[in-house]
């Protein structure tokens, strides 16, 4: 291979060789490989940067280092088991992944309108809590990557409060598999509402603390203002959605435009800023958290007793879950029922759990406004108990394409800020 242009390649190998080459030529351009294992690349992201002194003249992104084959693996599992896979894609927004997937499956089944009201309210509440948790991690890792450890420790501390609620409701801190086709896995355990009310009381103070720390912080402003600018036409061309799009001045939010799970019944604003830079994205995320608190509060008022799984014996999960001495499992009542009083119930349970339900052949696309942007799930069924194909349009995947547009021409330090402001999660990017 002949390289026509003069450049120094520092994309790996021995430093002595690099230095020798740098001294031998008069080249000014330096090609640096950053990642895929670098603490400032927000996961296993690989950046190939061409530097001219401090200036980044070319930024290319290499992904695929966390490709997990989730979409293919789902084709060998039942539709219900799919939720355990999708929750592990973008592991900071597990409940959005599950909801998008379940909405697509429900659309295929034609049961969208029959999902119980309580299940929808719980979904909305969990999603909004998840949005806050995700934004807190976005802030925390952003701080860490810029060297602000306090922001990081505060962000993770605040997130723990939300994780406590998740753990109470779903049994897990992450990777919940809580939202299921037809509803949610189980009802809110006793004490949840009180715990969420506590959070609602405490959280605004915590958000305020973070805003006080960052909003007018001169160091923070210097690192974020007018950095990684992306305007509205750029966003549209690159398919950028979510907080990034709203930070470029367009108040586009699927929760308002194409409401799902009953979002049309909630009152909230769509925060928007026209800065188009890293700081604007930060402000939008902060404001979104405050809006999420409003929605969670409304959810608590909307919670009416009722079923949380569709009342259709052919689809709804047959068992109720209960906490036993050895952890969460089928409730003793249900086990007694199927094991000693009803043979039909046992067969029904067995068939639905091992075989799953059949989904009519066809295709469906469902999208939700995840913490990162439009998260779409495209599901194809061939009429069997397993998906024929499930494809996710992950916002992080799409947004990472904007790295070149945001970084080229800026300094190398701003590359970190730009990537962090996109808030990509490689689990979602690579799936």
């Amino acid at each position, binding site marked *: 291979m002949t390289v026509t242009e003069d450049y120094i390649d520092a994309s790996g190998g021995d430093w002595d060789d690099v230095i020798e080459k740098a001294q031998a030529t008069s080249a000014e351009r330096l090609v640096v490989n950053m990642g895929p294992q670098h603490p400032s690349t927000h996961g296993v992201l690989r950046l190939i940067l061409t530097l001219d002194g401090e200036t980044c003249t070319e930024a290319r992104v290499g*992904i*695929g280092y966390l*490709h997990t*084959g989730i*979409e*293919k*693996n789902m*084709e*060998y*599992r039942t539709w219900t088991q799919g939720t355990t896979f999708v929750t592990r894609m973008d592991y900071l927004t597990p409940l959005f992944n599950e909801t998008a997937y379940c909405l697509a499956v429900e*659309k*295929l089944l*034609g049961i969208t309108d029959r999902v119980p009201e309580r299940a929808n309210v719980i979904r909305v509440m969990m999603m909004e809590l998840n949005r806050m948790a995700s934004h807190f991690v976005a802030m925390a890792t952003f701080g860490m990557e810029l060297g602000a450890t306090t922001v990081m420790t505060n962000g993770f501390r605040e997130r723990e409060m939300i994780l406590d609620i998740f753990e109470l409701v779903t049994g897990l801190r992450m990777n919940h598999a809580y939202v299921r086709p037809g509803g949610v896995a189980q009802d809110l355990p006793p004490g949840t509402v009180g715990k969420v009310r506590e959070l609602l009381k405490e959280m605004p103070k915590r958000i305020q603390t973070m805003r006080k720390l960052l909003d007018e912080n001169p160091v923070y402003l210097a690192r974020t203002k007018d950095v990684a600018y992306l305007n509205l036409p750029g966003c*549209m*061309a*690159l*398919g*950028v*959605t979510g907080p990034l799009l709203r930070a470029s001045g*367009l108040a*586009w939010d699927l929760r308002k*435009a*194409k409401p799902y799970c009953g979002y049309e019944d909630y009152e909230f604003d769509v925060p928007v800023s026209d800065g188009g830079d890293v700081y604007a994205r930060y402000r939008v995320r902060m404001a979104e958290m405050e809006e999420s608190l409003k929605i969670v509060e409304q959810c608590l008022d909307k919670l009416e007793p009722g079923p949380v799984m569709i009342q259709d014996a052919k689809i709804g999960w047959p068992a109720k879950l209960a906490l036993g001495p050895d952890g969460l499992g089928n409730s003793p009542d249900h086990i007694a029922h199927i094991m000693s009083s009803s043979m039909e119930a046992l067969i029904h349970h067995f068939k639905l759990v*091992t*075989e*799953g339900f059949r989904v009519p*052949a*066809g*295709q*469906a*696309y469902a*999208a939700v406004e995840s913490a990162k942007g*439009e998260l*779409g799930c*495209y599901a*194809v069924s*061939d*009429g*069997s*108990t*397993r998906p*024929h*194909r499930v*494809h996710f*349009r992950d916002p992080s*995947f*799409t947004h*990472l*394409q904007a790295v070149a547009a945001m970084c080229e021409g800026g300094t190398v330090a701003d590359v970190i800020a730009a990537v962090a402001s996109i808030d990509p999660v490689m689990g979602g990017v*690579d*799936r």
Partner: protein
Amino acid sequence: MSTENERERDEEAANLPDKLGRERLAAPVRRTGMFGATTTGDTSGYGGLQVRGSAPVHSQRPFTDPDDPRTADFDRVADDLEAALGDDAGAVERVEVARGEITFHVRREALPQVARVLRDDPALRYELCTGVAGVHFLDDTGRELHAVYHFRSLTHNSEIRVETTCPDADPHVPSIVSVYPTNDWHEREAWDFFGIVFDGHPALTRIEMPDDWHGHPQRKDYPLGGIPVEYRGATVPPPDERRSYK
């Protein structure tokens, strides 16, 4: 009088079970047997069961169902697309309306033209393309690989799907990166996983798999690639080789 009789006879002939049955048999087989056992014998007696897919749906106008608010703008979109395409209206092979979603099945040669019209026509204005998904149908002879695009209009708050196919022997679909730059990585992904060659893509290389990987892993003829799991001497085969329901 005689013409009426004839018409009745024709109608009857069209609905004869024999004819319907033959039509049904012409549809592609989607699934055989009840279980996914390939290594062990299927003793259930359902081994010969064949489940056929439905024939391609040709939805007829009106596309808008007054009872379904999700379909409210489908007639308008279809009209506008037809008008915008003008002489190229034949680009749309058929329209399918199902589950509150509209799908335009487009000939692959016409895809860039359709995409351009969808983006630029003021009545359509689908500014956002949410990427392309590859789908592999082993039994859809001559149209094995499907490329499915979803478009979203922020101006009109509308959502449509455009689907195009290509045969396995000639896996080429024109790229629409020049119209929607966001499709750059999505098309690379579809190439990586399904082997669909997007002609005109600026740099169609692998994106998720290592550069030296062989094959396109999410095709249906590519195995899942799991290994048997051994636990205390007992072995469980990987998911795709297990005996399971279909």
